[in-house]
């Protein structure tokens, strides 16, 4: 079985090299530059139209990603959604008490993004940032073999994941996840609004 796997790997490597003339690049199939998500970072390159002086200045933001982390994207998602809507300082503080491997990566990514924001994206105060977007994505998956009874085989998935974060300048919204229900007065106002908006058919 072990021999079989080795042979599989070998053939894979060989075909990989034979596929193109550029042997070096394909041999470096695990290199950083290839197969990493690029679309999210393109937001950093967008140039917004100038604002007039009476307009409220557009908040600066920075997108950052951490690619190919050896961690399950499903597990990382919980941590990613945990920090959403927090200020940067709060997120870093909270993450240092999360007893999970993924928390380290998320914390690192947020700190890197904060540094980037101050250095390259005209953010004045490093604490004046909040986590506007935070999510995980699946990276490369390497498949291994597992032995089962009666000569059968199973698949082992060695998953890698990506982590994406967008920090925005300013204060976070008061209730990002809308955990707190509306106050009775607000509920009443909403109801009134709804009633006034309805249309009575054939009324005029």
């Amino acid at each position, binding site marked *: 079985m072990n021999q079989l796997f080795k042979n599989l790997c070998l053939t894979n490597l060989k075909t990989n090299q034979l596929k193109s003339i550029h042997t070096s690049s394909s*041999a470096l199939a695990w290199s*950083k530059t290839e197969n990493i998500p690029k679309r999210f970072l393109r937001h950093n390159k*967008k140039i*917004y139209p100038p604002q007039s002086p009476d307009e409220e200045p557009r908040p600066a933001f920075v997108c950052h990603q951490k690619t190919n982390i050896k961690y399950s994207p499903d597990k990382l998602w919980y941590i990613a959604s945990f920090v959403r809507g927090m200020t940067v300082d709060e997120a870093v503080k909270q993450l240092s008490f999360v007893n999970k491997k993924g928390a380290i990566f998320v914390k690192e990514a947020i700190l890197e993004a904060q540094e980037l924001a101050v250095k390259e994206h005209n953010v*004045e105060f490093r604490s004046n940032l909040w986590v506007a977007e935070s999510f995980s994505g699946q990276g490369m998956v*390497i498949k291994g073999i*597992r032995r089962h009874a009666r000569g059968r085989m199973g698949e082992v998935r060695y998953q890698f994941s990506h982590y994406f974060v967008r920090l925005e300048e300013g204060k976070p919204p008061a209730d990002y996840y809308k955990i707190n229900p509306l106050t009775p007065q607000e509920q009443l106002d909403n109801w009134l609004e709804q009633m006034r908006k309805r249309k009575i058919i054939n009324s005029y």
Partner: protein
Amino acid sequence: MANTLISKLGALRIAPVIFTQPARTTTTKHYIPKFKKLRAQKVLKVDLPNPNEDISALSPEKIRQKMKERGILPPRQWMERPFYISATGGVFEPYVPPEGDGKASLVSTTRAKQAVQLLEKKSKSMMAIRKIKSFEEEFDQKEFVFQAQNTYIKAHESLANDDKRALRLYVTEKAYPEFRHNSRMKTIRWKFLESLEPPRVVHARCTDVVSKENIFGQVTVRFHTRQQLAVYDRFGRLIHGSEILAKDVLEYIVFEKHLSNLYGTWRIHEKIIPDWTPPKEPSKLTRVMPEPEPNIVQVESEETKQVEAGATAAAAPAIADK
């Protein structure tokens, strides 16, 4: 009673080992260790790559080993150095603008001195213009000046429009990076309003590079104009200038042409910035001042001194032997 208490204390004395070392309640160990090896064989070991490996931190030997494992040859070293030969890399005998030009009176000591120097240089300028005319028969200062202003405006407009291809037509290869410097990811709104004084040629020079026939011509033109400039950052926030404020601008622009080149054109080569220019306006972007680096005061302890002394004493005879 006392007996029991002592015994309890005794128990406590032994206990700390348990209390200080946190015991794990969950273990990954199987309750039957007998088939451990066979169980391990169920999963085949895979050599997982480390995509986030810091290659710069690896030692050269380690890198060599890794490349050998993968059968990759080391990258070929880039031994070439690019040269551009259709533009010079600077300004030869640059024009020295008279002090307080554009506003100050003609009566001042430095101004008088500069006027004398200017007369001396004028003959050289005349010679240079004659040389330019030998290559370019229809060269006329009055016409050239308007052509130069046109180039000046076009160059700035193409910079504001972020038109790199057009900018190359109006700017030499030396000035190109200087033009584009700091303009990345910014929106520039530039407007040429009017000429306060007609532009005029103040200086001209010619130089041969490498061979006698390979001649470059440089002409300095003085522009006194009124312009508007506003620079916005990536998010559209104003970081410099204003769109409602016009400013008087006095500039000395060096234009260059590769005279020997049949297809050479007059392009912007450099801007001469005199010593007496008023200081730049501070940026509207404010930043938190970085904390000053702590001053490390090295205190030499007596031990290190002794060691050093011993080292020099040991080293001295070695030199003497040589």
